């Protein structure tokens, strides 16, 4: 519909005569729509309204104004929807305003560099959630990240309200195996179980007992007659049965923490970096579980709640099953061996000795096959 125009519904016969009369009166009509032989709708310019209505009255047509489109109707419409317009305006301003801040920090690509280190670096330059995004000096941050030992390159950029930090870390290459031009010595007291010698002369035999520091493979070969040593590199993998032991002293009685059934729920709200709503408890000893719920993420109201549930606990004294506890300690030791020595144990045993007054000494012995060269 054109601006400053009126849409009229006209009812009556001889519509052509009406159109012809309007033309004679130099009234320009728009969007003529013959809806039925009796009903016609058309649009006229607002300035012609008085003239057209007079013609319609004179020609005895039944007419009605369907709509008027001018400044007044626009203003009326705006007044009717004032609440909506103001709300939309406030939302737009709030939305634009919130876009000037950082509401999320997304750190990625870091495996060697701990996220806490990056967060501390951001804290040092005053960049955190709720900071004005223009305060972020991306180049300075990139330079400081790149200065970290394990970082090859980095990028810092704002995507909406999220500060995106990506790191590319350096790759560690294992140094190539360099043949040793020195003798290979044993790293443990052991009984030789397997020998794979690539270069050099073996100085021990299978089943032989060796001590830490003993020469396993000599960095030489013998001449044709077996009389003279010719220096060479030594390269070998020698495995041996190695025994480890560990002694632990423990008490028959022990204490454990048990929940009494009393609990306290504390909800803390976090909006624009402000925290409020947390409440305290009167428990002497307690455990707690914490859960963070983000109500709006990447939205202009970044509301988060931290729910902490405190459980009151008390110390309960109890007597251990000595044999079961000894077995558990032994299992722990064996598992430690598997992790640290990277080897499966061949045999494990233990000796439990009571010292007196409910105190016991546990000695655990584990035998395993290890690379001793």
């Amino acid at each position, binding site marked *: 519909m054109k601006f400053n125009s009126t849409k009229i519904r006209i009812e009556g016969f001889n519509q052509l005569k009406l159109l012809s009369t309007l033309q004679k009166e130099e009234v*320009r009509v728009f969007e003529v729509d*013959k809806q039925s032989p009796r009903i016609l709708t058309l649009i006229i310019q607002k300035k012609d309204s008085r003239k057209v209505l007079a013609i319609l009255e004179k020609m005895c047509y039944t007419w009605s104004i369907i709509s008027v489109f001018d400044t007044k109707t626009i203003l009326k419409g705006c007044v009717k929807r004032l609440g909506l317009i103001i709300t939309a305006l406030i939302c737009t301003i709030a939305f634009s305003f919130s876009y000037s801040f950082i509401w999320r920090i997304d750190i990625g690509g870091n495996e060697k560099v701990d996220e806490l280190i990056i967060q501390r670096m951001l804290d040092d330059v005053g960049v955190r959630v709720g900071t004005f995004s223009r305060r972020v000096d991306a180049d300075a941050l990139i330079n400081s990240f790149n200065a970290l030992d394990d970082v090859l390159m980095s990028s810092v950029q704002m995507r909406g309200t999220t500060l995106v930090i990506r790191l590319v870390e350096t790759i560690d290459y294992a140094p190539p195996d360099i043949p040793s031009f020195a003798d290979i010595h044993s790293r443990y007291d052991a009984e030789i179980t397997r020998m794979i010698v690539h270069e050099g002369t073996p100085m021990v035999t299978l089943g032989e007992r060796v001590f830490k520091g003993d020469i396993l493979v000599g960095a030489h070969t013998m001449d044709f007659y077996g009389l003279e040593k010719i220096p060479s590199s030594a390269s070998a993998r020698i495995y041996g049965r190695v025994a480890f032991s560990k002694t632990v002293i423990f008490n028959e009685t022990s204490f454990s923490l048990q929940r009494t059934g009393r609990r306290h729920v504390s909800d803390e709200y976090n909006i624009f970096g402000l925290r409020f709503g947390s409440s305290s408890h009167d428990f002497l000893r307690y455990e707690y579980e914490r859960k963070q719920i983000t109500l709006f993420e990447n939205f202009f109201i970044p509301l988060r709640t931290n729910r902490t549930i405190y459980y009151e606990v008390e110390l309960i004294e109890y007597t251990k099953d000595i044999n079961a506890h000894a077995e558990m300690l032994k299992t722990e030791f064996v598992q430690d061996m598997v992790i640290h020595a990277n080897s499966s144990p061949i045999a494990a045993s233990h000796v439990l000795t009571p010292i007196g007054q409910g105190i016991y000494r546990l000695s655990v012995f584990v035998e395993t096959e290890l690379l001793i060269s």
Partner: protein
Amino acid sequence: MSFFSEVAKTMGLDSLRIASGYQVINYNGEAAYVEGFVQVLSIDNNEIVLKLKKGKIVISGENLSVASLETGAIIVKGNIKEVKSER
């Protein structure tokens, strides 16, 4: 068969496709018959504009008047100088 379909057939055109579009006959510049338009966009003494599915037809001249108006068909009388279709 309608007049327009018969003409389309004689000219070897697809009569169905032609029938779904618009047709114009100019009677010696004294009257024009147009069918296949969607709406009369504007009427005044010197110009009558008809809306098509795609584009519009502008009939320009002097002393133009609507002699007949039915759904999708119009007869315009007067001193017709030009019937122009704009896509």
